[in-house]
């Protein structure tokens, strides 16, 4: 398979200034040396708890954040160094949809204008063509043409998320980063949006990077899944293999922690002790060792590398 996008040694450090007059700077290591590939036409899920760096990674792919170091190669070309017109040209290829449907639409623009804006800015159509495209896009995402002149506040959460999807589709992107697209929605609405994303993927041959903390949602939509913890990718593999046979102790704990809507299935749960450590001062060695039940001496000293364990499955743990 061909990789549409390749992330190589991606890092993002946010500086935190402190100290008196002489500036001693500390860094929040939000994303710390992450590499993975996204293949054409697939959905790669990215899961992890808050602060693990999954959203930061997503924003770097769309060029909303500049990486501290590392490369993001889209169709072989490093996009992190693009500037000006080239950058604008590139933006068409990767779009993003956001978590909060109430915050991601400009409240002072009509839905039609919101969807038309990317078409106009990128000069994808002129005059009446723009309007035609807008109506077509509304139709794709399951909205009616009379919605065109409405304002975002007149819509429900699910409908707003549809508008966000239409805006992303407007520039014919190849890859869409879905940043927690259904986390803020009710269960019944969540299913509608997930099915819509699925339909659109088939219709437009889209590739998704699907970022979420809900493991059940990620499993449902993804072909492959990556698990992040404190800025590191700890495990990545085919969705079925990863869910049926999780290798990393963190993935295991995460999977066992999901409540399953079936009272008949009483499972043995792994309850992790303690909180996620501060990314300002991550533990030495394996970042998970402070909460790990299989922690060994080596874990406290040496950072494990992401190792291939066969069947497209890679894990960063000294156990393997």
């Amino acid at each position: 398979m061909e990789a549409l996008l390749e992330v190589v040694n991606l890092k993002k450090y946010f500086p935190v200034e402190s100290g008196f007059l002489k500036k001693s700077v500390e860094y929040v290591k939000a994303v710390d040396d992450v590499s993975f590939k996204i293949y054409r036409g697939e959905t790669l899920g990215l899961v992890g708890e808050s602060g693990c760096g999954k959203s930061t990674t997503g924003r770097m792919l769309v060029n909303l954040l500049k990486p501290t170091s590392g490369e993001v190669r889209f169709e072989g070309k490093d996009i992190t160094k693009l500037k000006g017109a080239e950058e604008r040209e590139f933006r068409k290829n990767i779009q993003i949809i956001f978590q909060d449907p109430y915050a991601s639409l400009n409240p002072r623009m009509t839905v039609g204008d919101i969807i038309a804006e990317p078409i106009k800015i990128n000069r994808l159509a002129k005059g009446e063509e723009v309007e035609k495209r807008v109506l077509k896009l509304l139709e794709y995402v399951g909205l009616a043409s009379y919605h065109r002149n409405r304002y975002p506040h007149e819509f429900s959460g699910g409908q707003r998320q549809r508008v966000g999807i239409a805006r992303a589709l407007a520039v014919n992107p190849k890859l869409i980063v879905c940043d927690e697209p259904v986390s803020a929605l009710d269960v019944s609405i969540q299913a509608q949006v997930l099915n819509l994303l699925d339909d659109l993927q088939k219709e437009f041959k889209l590739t998704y990077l699907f970022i979420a903390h809900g493991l059940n949602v990620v499993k449902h939509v993804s072909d492959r899944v990556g698990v992040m913890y404190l800025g590191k990718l700890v495990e990545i593999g085919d969705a079925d293999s990863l869910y049926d046979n999780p290798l990393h102790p963190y993935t295991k704990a995460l999977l066992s922690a999901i409540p399953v809507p079936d009272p008949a299935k009483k499972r043995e749960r792994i309850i992790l002790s303690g909180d996620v450590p501060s990314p300002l001062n991550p533990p030495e060695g394996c970042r998970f060792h402070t909460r790990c039940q299989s922690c060994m001496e080596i874990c406290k000293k040496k950072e494990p590398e992401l190792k291939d364990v066969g069947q497209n499955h890679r894990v960063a743990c000294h156990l393997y």
Partner: protein
Amino acid sequence: MELNREENVMLEGGVEKTSSPWRNIWSELVKNKAAMVGLSIIVILILIALFGKYLMPYDPNTGVLAESLQKPSSAHIFGTDEQGRDIFSRIIDGTKISLRVGITAVAIALTAGIIFGSFAGYYGGKIDMYIMRLMDIILAFPSLLLAIAFMSALGKGIDKAIIAISIVTIPEYARIVRGSILSVKENEYVQAAKAIGNNDMGIIFKHILPNVMSPIIVRATLGISTAILETSALGFLGLGIQPPQAEWGSMLGAGRGYFYNAPHIVLFPGIAITITVLAFNLFGDGLRDALDPKLRK
């Protein structure tokens, strides 16, 4: 409360009419009686300022010394001042100066404040630091004191009063604009605007500024009242508009020597100032309630 979001849920089928955010605010504002009273007074004041010369029974600037300090009567409904001029005519004449200074000073300060504040807030870093340091220096003075200092240096007159008052209020607007921009800059719709290829100016003017205008408009409306109060204070101290030109504050200042025996000489100009300032305050408060969904019920 979980009800709030559901309030906005629209029925499939489009029964309800489309309402733009601005139209919502207006319908909200119309319901606010105090704001409407304020707005009506403002409209009346503007009419007086424009057509006042047809209402004045006497020439505001020439008096009959023999008729000085007369109590209110049918001939002079607000009485006469120390030079025998008709106070009613002078108050009408003073309306246009107060409004002109108040509105122009705010307009200048607002424009400058939006420019400084947007750049500081959007770009951050060094630009932010330099702009805000400059603002800090202006803010290091109590505003009236700084206005007095400017006036004493620039000399007297209406244009100079406008300049003095606008300079001292720029930092206030710059701060509000900067703060609002910082609060919406990280919003997802701004991120989305960036992701679809907008440039900085497009983001600032199309996506950020329209969404931060509410507190700025409110502040500007209330700022007009402050500016009118400061104009009158400068006039009272003898620094503002120069005689014989009628200005409410300087009328008070000039009448100060006579008010033991003729309190009407200070009573009416003061009432005029209070009503004008009150009108802008009422309207500004109403605007704030209409624009701030948190306070909306």
